[in-house]
């Protein structure tokens, strides 16, 4: 049973890694077959929540992940409308997690994909990420951190998030004038695979991630807390699989999918301190949320309305990032972004302290 579980997550990781690399061949931005943070940011832009013209597109991968998870959870009777565990706190943490992601320019999932493309800046990000997870795990989680329990919610409450995905997908296909799409050549938002390809890729990843409980943050957390390697194996399998696929693609095509260097990486910058601190905030915040952005999407498809609120927090965070000039670019981080990351670390730490050390015994 246990060996079987590990084998399943390794196979799932291999499939996800291949999909991530191949999506770039089909048109996604380089080293961005998947990026939950970037894609939510693009969706925020498409809906006009921010007006950064280079990053506006409704990403079917996100829609696919949530609906894939919804389908898998429904089929296995795991779908359950649940929520009410400090939703507003989760919203705030998610808001700052997004600021960390857009400082680094990627969610933990894209961090692995960037590593698999040879982007060494992601290695610095990984160190910050693991350290953030360590702080969250040992200083808070293991000392009793809790956002209190969830309760059963009306069935409809759990179905709203998947329904929103269907509506947003309809907006993508119908493309009315009030939806913003980056114009060709304008930036990452204009680079995307065909809608059907992106949607199917998302659906497959959604189903696999729901069945395996894949989580980038959970991988290191479970290793630290329980000496369990299952989730980390999934993380590692994605890395190896995407790496091998990138090397093969570089050999058999004219394009370069693997470039082992710090400089000249696609949709990335080389400011090590802020790559480190951005991902530190992401690792730390996600531990307090109970999962990485990918896992939040999957849980929101399973009827977890706290995770749905978390995803909304990520989207609002992304909108603020571009409205307030917090997001980094290839030129590096902005001053506003640096200040926001510091504020984020402080806010997340306060939330951690209050919910760990200042609790009245019930």
């Amino acid at each position, binding site marked *: 049973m246990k060996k079987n579980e590990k084998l399943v997550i390794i196979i799932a990781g291999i499939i996800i890694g291949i999909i991530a690399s191949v999506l770039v061949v089909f048109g996604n931005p380089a080293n961005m077959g998947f990026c939950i943070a970037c894609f939510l940011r693009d969706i925020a832009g498409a809906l006009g929540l921010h007006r950064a013209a280079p990053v506006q597109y409704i990403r079917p991968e996100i829609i696919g992940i949530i609906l894939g998870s919804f389908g898998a959870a429904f089929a296995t009777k795991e779908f359950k409308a649940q929520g009410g565990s400090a939703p507003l706190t989760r919203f705030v943490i998610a808001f700052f997690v997004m600021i960390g992601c857009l400082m680094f320019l990627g969610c933990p999932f894209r961090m692995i994909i960037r590593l698999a493309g040879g982007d060494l800046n992601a290695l610095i990000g990984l160190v910050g990420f693991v350290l953030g997870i360590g702080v969250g795990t040992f200083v808070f989680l293991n000392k009793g951190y809790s956002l209190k329990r969830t309760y059963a919610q009306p069935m409809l409450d759990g179905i709203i998030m998947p329904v929103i995905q269907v509506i947003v997908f309809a907006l993508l296909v119908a493309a009315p004038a009030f939806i913003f799409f980056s114009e060709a050549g304008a930036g990452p938002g204009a680079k995307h695979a065909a809608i059907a390809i992106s949607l199917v890729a998302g659906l497959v990843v959604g189903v696999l991630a729901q069945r395996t409980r894949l989580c980038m943050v959970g991988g290191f957390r479970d290793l630290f*807390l329980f000496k369990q390697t299952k989730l980390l194996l999934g993380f590692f399998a994605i890395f190896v699989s995407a790496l091998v696929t990138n090397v093969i693609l570089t050999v058999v095509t004219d394009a370069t999918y693997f470039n082992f260097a710090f400089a000249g990486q696609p949709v990335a910058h080389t400011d090590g301190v802020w790559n480190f601190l951005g991902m530190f905030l992401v690792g730390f915040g996600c531990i307090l949320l109970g999962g990485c952005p990918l896992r939040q999407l999957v849980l929101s498809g399973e009827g977890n309305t706290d995770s749905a609120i978390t995803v909304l927090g990520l989207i609002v965070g992304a909108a603020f990032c571009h409205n307030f000039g917090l997001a980094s670019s290839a030129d590096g981080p902005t001053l506003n972004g640096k200040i926001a990351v510091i504020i984020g670390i402080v806010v997340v730490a306060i939330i951690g302290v209050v919910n760990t050390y200042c609790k009245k015994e019930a």
Partner: protein
Amino acid sequence: MKTIDTRGLSCPEPVILTKKALALNESEYEVLADRVTSRDNIIGFAEDAGYKATYVENNGEYKITLKK
């Protein structure tokens, strides 16, 4: 027999509570869970710690019995 109520808690809290309770090294525990992920993680952890786990389902909630 000690009872651990993890209902409604998000992962990994159910497993942390179980881990802390198992550290007391009693021979039998009852753990309540209401998510499949929590149930599987608790059973996985307890089996690693040398307990035999069985569970019954009742209306979407799981009563897990751990015995050494």
